[in-house]
């Protein structure tokens, strides 16, 4: 693994019964990179995400992660709940927020493991608990300010417009000071101006948080603009992994699904 690789997907195979969803996939993500994963529906993209985050841990091959201290960790040795502690965090295709909590409460959940206090202390609301709660609350305020959502902090998630919900999910990931953020269709359902806003936001996140970003997307214009590299897959297999320009020109990729090109 080269020095500044963050994530390495090495010959991963994931089968569901008779169906091979991921077929000897290879992908490396380096520090500070924005990598896009594209492919037609059913190509296995979300399955790859689920393997990385250990929602599926019965894959063959290896997925390794280079943490802040330079250690290389085989993700299979970690449980789903331990992944976020490594600095690897994700958003979800279908918004997975808590509708009957406020936006800032939802964001604070992203820092769940940064709390040191336990249940009994919470019952008694000890001074330690209150200090911790304030610390994380302030952090959440910072994150929301970073995302220009400060005025929404106390509003319930329930009933918010889709674009806001997507932003809240992203805000939640920032609470963990992530090293690699996995975005599952971040631009889905966004209009043009919201998509531009998202582009700016992702650059901002990469710069401020020194994070690498791996994203699945169908919005080709968005993907070609923002990604340093793109991995095109189909039927769970690599087709091509290269810069956006080269991918656009790649015959196999075009054949698989680009069809008429950008869908702007």
């Amino acid at each position, binding site marked *: 693994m080269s020095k500044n690789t963050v994530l390495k997907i090495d010959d991963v195979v994931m089968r*569901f019964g008779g169906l091979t969803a991921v077929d000897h996939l290879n992908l490396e993500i380096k520090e500070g990179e924005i990598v896009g994963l594209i492919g037609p529906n059913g190509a296995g993209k979300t399955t790859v995400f689920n393997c990385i985050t250990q929602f599926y841990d019965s894959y063959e091959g290896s997925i390794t992660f280079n943490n802040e201290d330079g250690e290389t960790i085989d993700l299979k040795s970690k449980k789903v709940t331990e992944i976020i502690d490594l600095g690897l965090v994700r958003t*979800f295709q279908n918004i997975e927020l808590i509708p009957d909590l406020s936006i800032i409460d939802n964001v604070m959940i992203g820092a769940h493991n940064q709390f040191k206090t336990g249940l009994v202390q919470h019952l008694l609301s000890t001074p330690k608990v209150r200090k911790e709660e304030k610390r994380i609350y302030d952090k959440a305020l910072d994150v929301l300010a970073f995302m220009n959502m400060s005025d929404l902090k106390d509003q319930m998630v329930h009933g918010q417009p889709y674009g806001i919900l997507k932003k809240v999910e992203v805000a939640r990931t920032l609470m963990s000071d992530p090293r690699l953020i996995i975005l599952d269709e971040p631009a889905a359902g966004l209009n043009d101006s919201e998509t531009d806003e998202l582009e700016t936001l992702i650059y901002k996140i990469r710069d401020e948080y020194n994070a690498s970003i791996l994203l699945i997307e169908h919005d080709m214009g968005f993907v070609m603009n923002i990604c340093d590299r793109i991995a095109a897959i189909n039927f769970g297999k690599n087709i091509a992994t290269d810069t956006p320009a080269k991918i656009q020109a790649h015959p196999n990729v075009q054949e698989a699904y680009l069809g008429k090109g950008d869908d702007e």
Partner: protein
Amino acid sequence: MDNVVRILFNSLQTGAVYALAALGIVLIFRAGKVTNFAQGMIGTFNAYVAAVFFRWLGWSIWAAVPIALVTAFITGVVIDKIFIRPAQNSKPMHKQIITLGIIMILTGIIPFIFGVDPIRLGRFFPTGGVDILGTTLRFNTMFTVALSVALMGAIFWFIQYTRWGLAIRVTASNKVTSQLMGVPTNTVTMMAWATAAMLGALAGIIIAPQSSVNPTFMLDVQVSAFFAAVFGGLQTFFGPVFAAFIIALARNSAMFYLSDIWGNAIVYILILLFLYFKPYGLFGEAPVEKV
């Protein structure tokens, strides 16, 4: 030896009763998308109807039972239309709570309509039986078991081979798509509730003669039916029926050979342990979660 045979015969009837109730639960669960906790109580209510016609009005059991089945049908329809339909889009837990509310309403109404005393209900065939292997197999038992099996068989046939049965299966697997395909899912759900109510009433009528019709006489049936439903797996219609007979046999055996107070508890504990390892029952399969 005659103990074994006797336990077997008892288990046939008990199993049939559990199976009827379990089938009702699974029908509503699959076609109505609701966990109907009130299954036992609805059966109790309509068993009261039969008991009232039988004992207070002196009708023959053969006349009282069809009346009870009719009221059961109406009960199912009414409950579906008034309480369940408005909650169609509520969360599953809310729908479950509604069925709990129905239990409370029925429990509260029974004393007002039927009084507080237990009412005895007679058997279809009060006397007579056949001697087999040293034990008497009563005509009544033969009849009730045959009736139950025939009824359930008819329902299985109906579900498998008729258009309405197809509608039920389709609604059970995906309601929204079914609606888009023009399947009258509301009618399907209503039929499920009405049928389940009738099955529950019949179960109560069969088992009532062993004690009497009172507010809690179907509690054991209710609990066992639910266990049969989950033990057999809620993804098929026949699984719970099969499981019901197994539970009845296990229960009667345990109560005879181990302990008559704790026999049923032992069986339930075993089932819970089984479910810990196979949460989807004998015939069910874990759905693959898509994140």
